[in-house]
């Protein structure tokens, strides 16, 4: 029996996995992947609430927006990563400390 709780559990698992990846992995590309996971967890939440609580298509529309944003974010993020690699010859996240200055 598929209920709202099972969707939320999956969404929670996805979110935690994504967050863990963002915090724990040192590879920038992996972090970007983690971000995608977090975004997907959010999108899944929207859709689940839309199906079980409001019963309309608002959540789906939001999900589509999130996918678009995620695509744009991935494009920008990968561009930054490539530029970062050209400068630092590495994609290790601990080398990216320019925000401190």
């Amino acid at each position: 029996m598929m209920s709202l709780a099972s969707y939320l559990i999956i969404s929670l698992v996805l979110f935690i996995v994504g967050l863990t990846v963002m915090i724990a992995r040192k590879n920038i590309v992996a972090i970007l992947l983690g971000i995608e996971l977090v975004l997907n967890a959010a999108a899944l939440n929207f859709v689940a609430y839309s199906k079980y609580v409001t019963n309309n298509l608002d959540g789906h529309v939001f999900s589509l927006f999130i996918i678009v944003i995620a695509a744009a974010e991935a494009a920008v993020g990968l561009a930054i990563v490539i530029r970062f690699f050209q400068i630092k010859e590495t994609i290790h996240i601990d080398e990216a400390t320019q925000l401190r200055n």
Partner: protein
Amino acid sequence: MEYTVWNIAPIFLAPVLAFVINAFFGRKLPRNGDWLSTLSIFISFIFSARIFGDFVFGKFATDYFIHKTFTWFDLSYGANIWKVDMGIFIDNMTAIMLLMVSGVAFLIHLFSTWYMDHDEKHGRFFTFLPLFTSAMLGMVLSDNLFSLFIFWEIMGFCSYSLIGIYVKKEKAGDASLKAFMTTRVGDVFLLLGIVAIWMALGSVTYVDIYAAIAEGKFAGQSVIGISLATFAALCIFLGAMGKSAQFPLHVWLPDAMMGPTPGSALIHAATMVTAGVWISLRMYPLMVLGDITWFIAVIGAITAFGAATIAMVQTDIKAVLAYSTLSQLGYMMIGVGVGSYNAAFMHVITHAVFKACLFLSAGSVIHSVHEQEMPKLGGLRKYLPYTHFAMMCCTLAIAGIPFFSGFVSKDRILGDALFYGFMSGQNPLLAIVPILGFAGAGLTAFYMFRMMFLTFYGENKQHHDDHGHGHGHGDHAHGHDIHHEHLDARQNVPLLILAVFTLGFWFAGNLTGQDGIAVFGKKNEWFKILVEAPKVEKFVNSPRQPWSSVDSKPEAHLEHAHYHHQTGYAGPNPDEHKLHSAHVIGAILSIIIAFSGVLIAFLMYIKKSIKPLASKFPGFTTTLQNKYYFDNFYIDVLIKKGLLAFNRGLAWFDMGIYDRFAVDGWAWVNRQLYRASKWFDNVVVDAIGVDGTGVAVNLFNLVLRIVQSGKIQFYFIMLVMVLASYIWTLKV
């Protein structure tokens, strides 16, 4: 010609002009401008003589007076009248006084041009001499006490300058300071008296004061518990005592001889000392109202007698004359006190003439012989015949020998004093006034003739010193002038003119001066008719002419009107018969006394048949030589014990209390305040405020530095923790 300001004001403005020119340009003028000073006084004399002529020969215009005023400054607001008038007041007394002052001063100036020739202080002397005279003339012309006080103080300053003119002589400087300070004591009181009158009446003009007395405005007013009239009269008389050198403020006058002799002549005769008598006469109605005439009489008697006793033992020719001035001023004050108004004023005039002549004669002697100690003089009659003649006339006058002016004036005073002391029903103790007066008259005759005999008779000691022993060259130079009489007109003419006016008939129609023994008829008693105590009723609502007004000449309608009830005596209880007998007794008594004084002097110093009394009473002589120890008393007791002790007390207060507690204490308070403020600054402001802010910022910075690691994953963790805490708070 009528009287306007332009023919009155030059009397005192001409000498002022001479003073200004000599003060600034005197050195550039030939003879240091002494001719200019003399000329300016002559101009005063001409204008004064015109006034005198109109008032005196203008047919005895007794009631006429000229009173011109202008408002000096006006600070009135609303109903408060606060204005000061200045003005000129001329009546018979003023006219006579003006002629006397300017005439005597002119002769003194003329004499001084000879006396001060080649003197190093010639220019300075002729700068102050006209200022001195102009101050006196201005004082005589004043119509109010305020301008009188101004001229009074100018005279004080001029006497200071003239006495101390030889600035390098220490004694001269001391004497000038003494004169200045002693008269200042009196001046303080005079100012107090003027202020008292001002407070009561809002005016110090003579006319207003007379009118106020007539209207009884002084009644019921009082100051510090005594009646206002008494207070004001006493203060004004104390001022007069300072200026006229009355006991006990007499100490300055004998020392005033430190100046050049003609300067002494001016101080002793025409100006300065007569100012005190002048103000006493002008304020006579106030003195009567204040009931202090007995005090004036007693002070005058003490001065007259005390100074005469001191004069007996003086050896300096000028000191004898100085003490004789004191004594004669005492007689004037007796005259004021006993109500002998017109005789007191006449004595001012006669004394001015013969005392000026005496001092100029003494100057003539000193300048010729260069010696003023009488024991070293003698036999000068042959060498200075004109001086001898003039001085003998004056000595006869001052001694009260009949037919001379001193007899006329002094014996009227003594006659009135006799009446006052014995016959008018006064307090019997006041009999001391005529007793001291007559005794002083005898002493006057004695010491004046002693001076004459020692100076002009006997053998010439200077002469012998020169030729007998042949001392050093210095001794020759010392007495070289003695061999010939100076025939300089500037020396002898003033002496002879003054000597002529020592004759009695100039002042009184009858030669003896007594009413009962008239010789030339009563009409010639011009002095008695013209001078009388101010009749205060006359001045009620008296009109004032504005400053620019023109006065006509005195009218002539009063020719004989006033003589019948005019006795010259203004005192209490005028009993004609008793007064007359007092005058006859007084005249006889004083002739006897004067001649016996002369006789004793003759026997002592010419015949040498009586030994001078000095050897018999050495103790008393020493007392006299020390001037009754008055100077010692003032210096040792009043100044050293009193004033200096008081000053030490003040100094102790200043150093011990004020300096120590107030000044040093304030410094201590400030030091403590400074310490507290330093602590506040260092600890509160600097350590806590300034450094504390720094430390706080530093600490905050430390935290921020840790947080701001730049590690993106750390930021994620922070983000998550913030989110988590946010959710946590929501849940709670």
